[in-house]
């Protein structure tokens, strides 16, 4: 109720007991310690969980290009490219690469199922769609162990119910 909000009778701030001159001096000191852009950047450096010794002729550090969004945006949608995305997603967890791989997979209409930790893509339009789920044939990417061996592959699951509760 003083006309100038925040000031009290003696020209100081009622909240802090500081006067205008003091506030300006502190502001000017802070002017030389502004937050820098890198202060809000998260490290994108990849640290391998199980580092192995490789020949010196092999690259020993990740190429910087994999930290650039445009590398992931141009990766394409062929099988090799999609396999790369899955590799980054499953084997480079908690990195920028996993984040970008997930983003690109979503652009290619893959959807992550939080219960099965698996990516699904509609093979055909769902037979049933409700507010809670959809059901139909889906391509999914998973690790399979069979009599013939084991490995990652894409398979088709028919009559699968994808509950939206588990959609990431």
């Amino acid at each position, binding site marked *: 109720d003083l006309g*100038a909000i*925040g000031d009290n009778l003696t020209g100081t701030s009622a909240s802090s007991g500081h006067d205008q001159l003091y*506030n300006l001096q*502190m502001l000017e000191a802070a002017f030389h310690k502004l937050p820098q852009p890198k202060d*809000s950047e998260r490290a994108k450096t990849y640290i391998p969980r199980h580092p192995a010794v490789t020949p010196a002729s092999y690259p020993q550090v990740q190429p910087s290009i994999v930290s650039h969004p445009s590398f992931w945006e141009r990766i394409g949608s062929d099988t090799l490219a999609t396999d790369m995305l899955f590799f980054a997603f499953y084997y480079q967890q908690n990195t920028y690469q996993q984040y970008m791989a997930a983003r690109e997979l979503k652009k290619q209409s893959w959807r992550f199922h939080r219960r099965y930790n698996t990516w699904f893509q509609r093979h055909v339009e769902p037979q049933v769609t409700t507010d809670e789920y959809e059901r139909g044939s889906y391509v999914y990417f998973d690790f399979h162990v069979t009599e013939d061996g084991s490995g990652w592959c894409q398979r088709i699951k028919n009559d699968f119910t994808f509950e939206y509760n588990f959609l990431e």
Partner: protein
Amino acid sequence: VDPNQVAVLFSEWCQMCNHVSASDAAYTRFVTQLQQDGLLKGDDISERFFRILTELAVTHSLVSEQIVAPGGSSQQSPQQPHISYFSIDSYAKLVVMVLKYSVEITPNKASILSKILSVTVRSIQKDAEEKKASFNPRPYFRLFINWLYDLTTTDGHHDSSNFQVLTAFANAFHMLQPLRVPAWSFAWLELVSHRSFMPKLLMCNSQKGWPFFQRLLVALLKFMEPYLRNAELPEAMDLLYKGTMRVLLVLLHDFPEFLCDYHFSFCDVIPSSCIQMRNVILSAFPRNMRLPDPSTPNLKIDLLAEISIAPRIMSDVDGALKSKQLKTEVDEYLKRPEGSSFLSDLNQKLLLPQNEASVAGTRYNVPLINSLVFYVGIQAVQQLQLNKANPSASVQQINHISPMDIFQIGTATDIFRSLITSLDTEGRYLLLNAIANQLRYPNSHTHYYSFITLYLFSEATQEITQEQITRVLLERLIVNRPHPWGLLITFIELIKNPRYNFWSRSFTHCAPEIEKLFESVARSCG
């Protein structure tokens, strides 16, 4: 809680964070151990524990500040010195893990978070108070940024817990507002406007975050207000001002309804001379609204559907009136004006005591004037809408001056007419400013205050009053854009409608420069 033992624990934690094969299981075990040691109960021991951790993290981050110059002598670099954030990032992660994995002892995780935030707030306050100009805000900034990234979400599934987290941060930021910790001001504004905080607070939980953000913005404007009275700003304040303008532009673009709903609160804490900043706020309009071009020939304002709709007002409109015990008097006058002496000394009641006036930079209680003008106008508009027999009749009433108009809204208008003659130049200017602050997007308030502005011009008994009305409008138009829609249509009506005889007033051609100025503004209004 032995600081040395805490340092050992922190060192173990940092080593764990640095280890390439660290897993959530390891983090869980560490946090569980802390809990078993009684360090996470949320009591005084917890507070001391987290306070020591904060001090350790900050101290270690600043150890690398001194840069060794060639020749071995240590000197402060004139540029920003390098800071290592490993200890800060590690401590931030510990807090995130504690919130994620500790079994609730306190009722909910938001409560634990609030305790940790209050420890951080006190650390910053103490550090800033002790170090004064040598206080470095950046490690604490990094700490908050980490938490905003990791503890908030835009995921709608967790709206209510996200809201608790965001409001905990909002409360912490309020405790650290520039008036309390001026050396933290830049870091504060960057955090408050960060894309991990501001949009999330404004988007979550059906606008329940809006009062929290309004409070923060008002705190910033209060800090800047004394300095913004002057056109020339010190360099540091100029940077803060431009930063604030950027933030207001983001709000204007992305959350205009927020600026619309709280415009009154913001105008209360912006000096009358800070015209462009105020215009940015007053230019906001709801995103679903299409504003007709004010320069459209023969634009029929009266036919716009929006002018019969009252805007949503979330600010406390009559608080200043109530605090000065004036609201009851205003209500009584509006109900029963006959024989009332309310108007006879109203202008005196708007003055500040002399010692307060020197601090405020004005002899008048500006928030009180703003409150009076807005409250009276709202009552008049409500009364009009209650009395209307049919929509078209009320529209005609508000647009054309007639004895019926005066009868319907005369009591409210009498207050303005009385004040405009009884106030001195400064008081009249502030009154007209308060009226012009309601010239915004098409709505019933804009329509009423536009009418009042033009009515006061046409009914003025002295040309000095007409000049002052013109000046108040003009100074809002000659600053760089944006300009509020209601301001434009009012000024265009004033200069175009022959009723007001605008161009025959002597002040419109009192000097060649003034003539050119009017012509230029008239051209820019189309």
